C-alpha cells in the first residue's frame, strides 16, 4: 500500500511543491547539492586514505579515552560518522578491536559530527564560500583523470567540498529570498511545547534526508537568515541527533551482530543525550551564553552559539554514558549473542567495507586464515591426529605413536556443510571487492583467491588419503604402517613450522627462508620415501596393490605439504616483493 499508492502520491506533492515554489526549490537544491558533496567526500576518503584511516582507528583505540578521541578526530577530519562506523564495524568483526573500544569510537564520532556545525557557522556563512566551491570542483574533476587512486581520492574530496560549499550557499540564498515573502520566524513556538515540536521536526527531517550534517546545515543557514528562533534551532539540533540514530538503527537491521550492537549503543547514547538536553535546555542555553565570550564568539552570533550548544550536549552525553560503558557492553553482548551454529559462515567479510580497499583486503586475509584453520582441523583429524598433540612439545615420533586410533570424521560432509560455503563466500567477496582495488590490491586478491583454492584442494587430497590410511592402519604389515606414519609425521613437521611462524614475530625474510627451506626438505623427503617404497617392493615386503596405494598417497601427502607451505607464504609474508621471491612455480 505504502510503496504503491502513498509513496508516489507523496512524491507528486513534493514535485509540485518544488516546481511551484521558487525559494523552496533553491533551498531543497542546496540540500541536494550538499548531500552529493557528502557522498563525494565519503567516497574520496575511502580511496584517498589508502588505509591511513584504518591504521589510525586500529592503533589508537587502546583505552576508552583514546578511542573516544580517535573517534572524534577521525570524524572531524573525514566529516562522515557513517564512514567511521562502517570501518569500526568491520574491525569489530575482524576482532581487531573490542566492543568497548568500538563503542568509545562511536561516542567520539558523535562529538566529531558537531564540527560540521562549527565549519558551517564559522566559515560557511561568514565568507563567500561559493567563490571557493568552483575552483575546488574544477581541480577535483581534473584530478579524477589521474590513474593513481590517491589522486582520484583527493579529487573526490575536493569535489565533495566544492558541492558542500555550493549547497550551503544555495541554502543561504534560498532562506534569504524566502524571508522576503514568508517569514518562518512567525511560526516560532516558545516553552516546552515548542521544544517538543521542533525536536520532532529535526528528527523527521534527518530521517528523510538521512544525514544529520545536512540537517544541521539547514538549521544553521535558517538561523543565520533569521528564519527560525534561536531556542527552536537548539531543539532542532537535538532532534537531528535523534533522527540520525533512527537512520543508523534502520541501517543496522541488515547488518551483522556487531553492527546491531553498535547501532543500539548509538541509540542509547543519543537518547540519553537528548533526554538530558531536553530536560536542561534552558540551563544549557545559559551555559553557552556564559562560555561564548571565552571562546571569542561575538555577541549576537547565534549560529556559532548553536554549534557550541551542539558540541556541549554531545560532550555531556559522553560524560554521562562512559561511566556505565562496562554495563552497556555487557548488555549489548547479551542482547545480540554470537551465533555459534554458524560454522560454515564467514566471520570477517562485512559487505559495508567492500569499497574500502585496505579494510576489504584485511578482512579477506582474515577470512582465508579462518578457512585455513578450519581446513587444517579437518585434515589433521582425517590423518588421525589431534591439534593439541601436534602443537605440543612432544617429539614427532611420540605424537604419531600416541595417535593411532581412527578419528571419526567424514571429510566430505565437513567440506559440504562448512568449507564449501565459506570458500564460496570468500570467492564472491574477493570478486566483488576487486572492482574497487588498484593493480596492487588486485594482485593481493588474486593471491588470496589462489590460497583459498589451494586450501580446498588440500581437503580434497586428504579425502583420498584418509580411506587408505584407515584401511592400512589395521594392517598386520608393519612396513606399510610405518610408511603411512611417515606421511603423518611429515604433516606434523610442516604444521609445526607454520605454527611457529604464526606465533612468533619473525622478520619477513626469516619467515620466507624457513618456508623455502621446508619446501626443499619436503621435496627431499618425497624422493627418499619413494626410494624406500621401491626397496620394499623389490624386497617383497609390500605387495603391488599396497605399493600403488602408497605411491598415490605419498603424492597426496606431498601435495598437501606443498600447498600448506605456499599458503603460509601468502598468508604470513606480507611484503609483496619478498613474497614474489618464493619459489612457488619452480617448486610445483
Amino acid at each position, binding site marked *: 500500500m505504502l510503496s504503491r499508492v502513498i509513496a508516489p502520491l507523496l512524491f507528486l506533492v513534493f514535485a509540485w511543491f518544488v516546481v511551484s515554489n521558487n525559494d523552496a526549490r533553491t533551498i531543497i537544491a542546496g540540500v541536494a547539492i550538499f548531500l552529493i558533496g557528502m557522498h563525494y567526500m565519503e567516497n574520496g576518503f575511502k580511496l584517498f586514505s589508502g588505509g591511513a584511516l584504518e591504521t589510525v582507528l586500529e592503533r589508537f583505540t587502546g583505552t576508552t579515552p583514546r578511542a573516544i578521541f580517535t573517534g572524534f578526530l577521525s570524524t572531524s577530519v573525514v566529516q562522515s560518522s557513517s564512514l567511521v562506523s562502517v570501518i569500526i564495524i568491520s574491525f569489530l568483526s575482524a576482532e581487531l578491536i573490542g566492543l568497548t573500544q568500538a563503542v568509545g569510537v562511536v561516542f567520539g564520532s558523535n562529538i566529531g559530527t558537531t564540527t560540521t556545525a562549527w565549519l558551517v557557522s564559522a566559515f560557511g556563512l561568514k565568507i563567500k564560500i561559493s567563490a571557493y566551491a568552483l575552483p575546488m570542483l574544477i581541480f577535483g574533476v581534473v584530478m579524477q583523470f*589521474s590513474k593513481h587512486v590517491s589522486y582520484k581520492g583527493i579529487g573526490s574530496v575536493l569535489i565533495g567540498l566544492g558541492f558542500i560549499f555550493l549547497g550551503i550557499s544555495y541554502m543561504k540564498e534560498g532562506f534569504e529570498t524566502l524571508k522576503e515573502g514568508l517569514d518562518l520566524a512567525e511560526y516560532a513556538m516558545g516553552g516546552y511545547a515548542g521544544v517538543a515540536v521542533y525536536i520532532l521536526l529535526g528528527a523527521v527531517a534527518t530521517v528523510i534526508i538521512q544525514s544529520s550534517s545536512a540537517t544541521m546545515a539547514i538549521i544553521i543557514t535558517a538561523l543565520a537568515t533569521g528564519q527560525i528562533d534561536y531556542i527552536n534551532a537548539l531543539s532542532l539540533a537535538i532532534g537531528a541527533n535523534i533522527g540520525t540514530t533512527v537512520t543508523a538503527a534502520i541501517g543496522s537491521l541488515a547488518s551483522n551482530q556487531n553492527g546491531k550492537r553498535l547501532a543500539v549503543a548509538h541509540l542509547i547514547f543519543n537518547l540519553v543525550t537528548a533526554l538530558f538536553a531536553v530536560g536542561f535546555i534552558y540551563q544549557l542555553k545559559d551555559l553557552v551564553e556564559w562560555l561564548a565570550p571565552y571562546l571569542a564568539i561575538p555577541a549576537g552570533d547565534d549560529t556559532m552559539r548553536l554549534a557550541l550548544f551542539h558540541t556541549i550536549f554531545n560532550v555531556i552525553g559522553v560524560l554521562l554514558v562512559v561511566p556505565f560503558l562496562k554495563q552497556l557492553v555487557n548488555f549489548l553482548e547479551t542482547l545480540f549473542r554470537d551465533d555459534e551454529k554458524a560454522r560454515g559462515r564467514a566471520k570477517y567479510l562485512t559487505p559495508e567495507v567492500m569499497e574500502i580497499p585496505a579494510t576489504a583486503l584485511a578482512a579477506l586475509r582474515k577470512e582465508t586464515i579462518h578457512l585455513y584453520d578450519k581446513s587444517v582441523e579437518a585434515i589433521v583429524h582425517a590423518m588421525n591426529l589431534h591439534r593439541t598433540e601436534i602443537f605440543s612439545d612432544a617429539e614427532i615420533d611420540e605424537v604419531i605413536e600416541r595417535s593411532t586410533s581412527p578419528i571419526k570424521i567424514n571429510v566430505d560432509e565437513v567440506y559440504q556443510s562448512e568449507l564449501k560455503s565459506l570458500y564460496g563466500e570468500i570467492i564472491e567477496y574477493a570478486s566483488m571487492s576487486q572492482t574497487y582495488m588498484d593493480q596492487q590490491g588486485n594482485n593481493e586478491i588474486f593471491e588470496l583467491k589462489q590460497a583459498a583454492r589451494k586450501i580446498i584442494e588440500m581437503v580434497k587430497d586428504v579425502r583420498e588419503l584418509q580411506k587408505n590410511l584407515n584401511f592400512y592402519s589395521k594392517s598386520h604389515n608393519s612396513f606399510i604402517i610405518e610408511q603411512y606414519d611417515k606421511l603423518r609425521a611429515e604433516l606434523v613437521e610442516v604444521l609445526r613450522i607454520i605454527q611457529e611462524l604464526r606465533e612468533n614475530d619473525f622478520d619477513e625474510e626469516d619467515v*620466507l627462508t624457513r618456508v*623455502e627451506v621446508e619446501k626443499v626438505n619436503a621435496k627431499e623427503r618425497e624422493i627418499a620415501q619413494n626410494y624406500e617404497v621401491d626397496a620394499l617392493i623389490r624386497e617383497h615386503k609390500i605387495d603391488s596393490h599396497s605399493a600403488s596405494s602408497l605411491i598415490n598417497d605419498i603424492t597426496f601427502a606431498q601435495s598437501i605439504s606443498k600447498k600448506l607451505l605456499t599458503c603460509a607464504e601468502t598468508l604470513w609474508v606480507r611484503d609483496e616483493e619478498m613474497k614474489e*621471491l618464493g619459489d612457488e612455480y619452480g617448486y610445483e
Partner: protein
Amino acid sequence: MGTNELIDKLEDYFDLSKKKQRKKHDKLVKIIHKLEKKKSRLEHKALREKEIDATSSRYHDVERELRVISKLISKAEKKDLDA
C-alpha cells in the same frame, strides 16, 4: 615547453611509473641487504659446524639453508635488474 614534453610530464605525474620503479628498487635493495646479512651469519655458523663435524645433520641443515638464501638473493638481484 613542447606538447610532447608536456604530455610526458603529465604522464609522469599521473602514472607515477618512475616513482613506483624507484620504490620497488629501494625495497629490493633492502631485501637483498637483509638476506646478505642473514647469509653471512649462516656462513659463519656453517664454518663452525663443519669444524665440529662435517657429516653432521646440523651442518647439512645450515648448508641447505645457505643454498636457499643464495637462491633468494640471486632471484632478488635478477628482479632488481629486470625492474
